[in-house]
């Protein structure tokens, strides 16, 4: 054979064998080795079609992982919590979104859908168990929530029929003629005698506004009822920074509005599908008889058998309090200027 013929054979051999092996080698070996990361593919189906697959994953502490979510049927939204601050937003059918992260301590986290995607949307959740490779069976036990523990110790039944058998929708004991205005309350605030305990935000969390209204009526006998209602509305809407309220509003719109309604009318598009009617937070007469800590407990623990989901495994306590503060703004017509 001539030298040029040999060279040609070598070139052909390189193309026929070398090219595929380079491509396949890169795909199956080099790329994975370079990424040096576990990639976990999670398919998202509406709950009626199975929800997340898989719906439970295990990763080791300090092990970098990439979670890759693919929407299979309709648009979903994927967020991770509590306290991870990950919200991947909408994922349309056929699209994929991924997040790489490393957990630094053992514990349990949740990936969940935050875009209404079917009647059972709120059951669309999956768990991430972060284990210590040295001790794979030892997961930190869930800590009891101190607020809920305190309510139980106080003898408050979170699931008690609200207000001695009165259900939402019945005629309220408290009559509020027009939506309370916290803005007006702010201007009246100086002219009203406030009992000292009422100024304490922690005290207010465990007392309903209706109770404070009663106290104010006793200390301000000449003041019109409407004025006192506005002052109470002011007291219940001043504890939170506007940024926190804005974040809570976004959380509410994504996770709660489909049932409770965007403006709190209890009339979201899924309101007709729940075992009990979702509460209308915009009903001031109703909400003013509720305690913040009970609302908090209900959000974290859910309402047994009512189809009110539990959000304790999705949100941090701080996020939950912010949601409660946001609920208080729903029946109020005008918020005061931020201080």
């Amino acid at each position: 054979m001539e030298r040029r013929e040999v060279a040609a054979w070598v070139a052909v051999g390189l193309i026929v064998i070398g090219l595929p092996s380079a491509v396949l080698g890169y795909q199956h070996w080099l790329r994975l080795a370079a990424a040096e990361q576990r990639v976990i593919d999670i398919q998202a189906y509406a709950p009626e079609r199975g929800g997340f697959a898989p719906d439970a994953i295990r990763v080791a502490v300090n092990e970098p992982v990439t979670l890759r979510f693919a929407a299979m049927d309709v648009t979903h939204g994927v967020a991770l919590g509590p306290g991870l601050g990950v919200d991947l937003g909408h994922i349309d059918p056929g699209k994929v979104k991924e997040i790489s992260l490393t957990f630094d301590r053992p514990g349990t986290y949740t990936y969940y859908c935050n875009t209404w995607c079917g009647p059972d949307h709120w059951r669309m959740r999956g768990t991430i168990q972060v284990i210590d490779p040295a001790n794979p069976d030892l997961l930190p036990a869930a800590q009891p929530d101190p607020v809920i523990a305190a309510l139980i110790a106080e003898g408050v039944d979170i699931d008690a029929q609200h207000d001695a058998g009165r259900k939402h929708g019945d005629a309220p004991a408290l009559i509020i003629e027009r939506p309370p205005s916290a803005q007006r309350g702010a201007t009246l605030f100086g002219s009203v005698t406030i009992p000292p305990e009422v100024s304490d935000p922690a005290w207010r969390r465990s007392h309903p506004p209706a109770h404070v209204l009663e106290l104010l009526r006793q200390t301000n006998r000449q003041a019109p009822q409407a004025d006192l209602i506005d002052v109470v509305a002011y007291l219940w809407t001043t504890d939170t920074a506007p940024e926190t309220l804005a974040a809570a509003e976004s959380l509410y719109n994504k996770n709660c509005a489909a049932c409770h309604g965007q403006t709190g009318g209890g009339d979201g598009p899924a309101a007709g599908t729940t075992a009990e009617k979702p509460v209308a937070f915009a009903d001031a007469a109703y909400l003013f008889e509720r305690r913040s800590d009970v609302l908090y407990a209900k959000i974290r623990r859910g309402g047994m058998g009512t189809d009110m989901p539990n959000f304790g495994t999705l949100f941090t306590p701080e996020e939950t309090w912010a949601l409660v503060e946001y609920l208080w703004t729903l029946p109020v017509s005008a918020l005061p200027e931020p201080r």
Partner: protein
Amino acid sequence: MTRPPSPLSMRPRPIWVLFGLVTFAVLVAPLPGAAGAATREIALDATQFEFAPGRVHVNRGDRVVITLTASDVVHGFYLDGYGLERRVEPGITEQIAFTADKPGKFRFRCAVSCGPLHPFMIGELIVERNTPYWRAVGVVLVAAAGMLVHLWQSGKTRSSQEVINGTG
């Protein structure tokens, strides 16, 4: 043959007064539901796999405010001709405002794949020609009728004249 106009023919005949009134009415009468450029608020709900209402009528020049909701899964709204696009999530109301400045029939379709029949999720926006257009049409019709009456009347007048002159 020119005759000085008689005092009688100086006075407009009742029939022309009637035409004048009709023309005036066509020009200024408030038409039901189509008074000038109005703000049209339309609640549009998206479900698998249709929009409700499926057909929307507005007048040209109207300010259209669509309150868009979704009741089951995420949908979208894309309006042909106007190039408006929005995505809507159950529970979160979206508002789309625009001026209907192009007349005609435009399709709006779902812009987010929402299931097997998604491609058939289509509605229709009909932008009617606006009131000035219809008024102009009205005036033209009245004028045409006037013309006919005029021809008929002048024919009648001439023949009576001819009868009087005994030339008929």
